[in-house]
């Protein structure tokens, strides 16, 4: 897809892979709306992108909150025009340190599913209709190898990512031929706060730089 002038939403955009995706997309001329819960880091990321000459906007919202979805879709389209690219990058691990399923509260599983699965479903539902009407658009789901491997202690997160992978596949099957693409990408292990929360003793030197991963995902989006 052509990114110059394209309207893009990136969730989980305040830091890590989301911030890198925002920078990479804006550097290629996309008009980017970053969404994250914490206003402070979000606005810092937006300021960095603007300082580099890109267009970025901040919406401090929680993707796991049902009432936030149309606020995000509406405000984003007001700020950058019709949305051509939606990147579902926001996700939560659930409680850390990661715990066994038998020790996981049901409410924590619900919250993980709300952020990692139901929120993306709701936001795609709000954004993909106009994409189908225009006959173009791309939706990216950021996945994980936990979607396909049953790692002990990664229960809530793994379940949510497995479901998200399947959600991506069903969206793609139902909207085949409409011009709207659905991509699921596994970024691998990155040097991010989220990774440090999950595996505190990991050696950062062995982890990928989120900027490199973002460049790879953007190339995939452009192809």
């Amino acid at each position, binding site marked *: 897809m052509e990114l110059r002038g394209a309207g893009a939403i990136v969730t989980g955009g305040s830091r890590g892979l989301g911030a890198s995706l925002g920078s990479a997309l804006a550097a290629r001329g996309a008009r980017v709306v970053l969404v994250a819960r914490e206003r402070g880091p979000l606005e810092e990321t*937006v300021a960095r992108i603007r300082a580099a000459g890109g267009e970025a*906007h*901040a*919406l*401090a919202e929680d993707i796991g909150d049902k*009432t936030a*979805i*149309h*606020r995000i*879709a*509406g*405000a984003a*389209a*007001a*700020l950058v*025009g*019709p*949305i051509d690219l939606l990147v579902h990058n926001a996700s939560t691990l659930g409680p850390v340190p990661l715990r066994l399923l038998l020790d996981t509260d049901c409410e924590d599983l619900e919250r993980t599913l709300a952020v990692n699965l139901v929120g993306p479903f709701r936001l795609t539902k*709000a954004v993909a*209709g*106009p994409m*189908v*009407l*225009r006959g173009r658009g791309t939706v990216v789901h950021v996945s994980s190898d936990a979607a396909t491997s049953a790692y002990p202690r990664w229960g809530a997160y793994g379940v949510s990512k497995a479901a998200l992978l399947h959600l991506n596949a069903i969206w793609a099957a139902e909207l085949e031929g409409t011009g709207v693409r659905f991509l699921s990408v596994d970024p691998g292990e990155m040097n991010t706060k989220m990774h440090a929360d999950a595996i505190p003793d990991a050696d950062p030197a062995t982890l990928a730089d989120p900027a490199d991963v973002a460049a790879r995902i953007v190339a995939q989006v452009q192809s």
Partner: protein
Amino acid sequence: MSPATWPRESPLAERLLVVDPRCDCTEERRVGDLAAYVRAGDLLVVNDAATLPASLQGRTASGASVEARLLASRDGSWRAVLFGAGDWRTRTEDRPAPPVVGEGDVLTFGGELRARVSGVSPASTRVVTLRFEGDPDHFWSALYRHGRPIQYAYVAAPLALWHVQTPFASRPWSSEMPSAARPLAWELVLALRAKGASFAAITHAAGLSSTGDAALDAALPMRESYEVPAETAAAIARTRARGGRVIAVGTTVVRALESAALPGGGGTVAPGVRDTDLVVGSSHSLRVVDAIFTGMHEPGTSHDTLLQAFAPRELLLRAFQGAQQRGFVGHEFGDSMLVGPGILSVLTS
């Protein structure tokens, strides 16, 4: 006609009144039967404007309660119709008059939004132009947090934003939901496409249905902005060239397309962003649109006047009264009409 008081769960099961002036006849079906009246090669044009949280409760500098119902403008300012104390639970015509404001006055809405009155309409002191403080990120975030959908007293409970978005909602331009497209579930849209019909969009800033001021109401619809994308203009030209029909989904689409009609253009339109104050009625000779799929419009309203460009008043009145007797319901969550000359001949041809 009784209003539908809440969004219904199965849009395709909602009722459809088909009115054909060519045979001076009507039929009653369900929205899910729409494909029976649409031919391969037809183009359905929808309004893809999302509905704004356009109702803001606020105060004047002296502390008086005021509700501003916002209307989008192209220059970044907002026109607003002001209402006095109270909210949608009171019928607009029963609302107290708003406090009189003048140029330079400041209105505050919640803790985050402040606007300065930059103009007052000569037509009515209720109609003002507002300039909001803050950058666009702040304004849109605050508007979406503080604003509520405009709604009327016949609706059963407070509406959420998702209740007032059509399946095609993109940029938030509309003050009220461009509701004709509301029952077009994707299952139906994709079935119509599979049949060989196509879809295109315009964006039209649908305004207010009611202002609480009889003189203003009589002058509705107000001037509204619209955009016809180049790809929609091209789709209309292709439809014309192959002998297909242009079916407008909603009165706003008729207003936009007829405003954009190219003189001598054989039913084609000029792309672009413009304002319109075109009033379509019985004396208007339709240049672009062949038929309309829309809501149930009460005789005597401006929407009904627009329908008279498609069918004689007497036929519309007879059809409406019959539907009313048989339990059709009206307003934005109500049943639908399909009106156009020859629309029923599709079934027999």
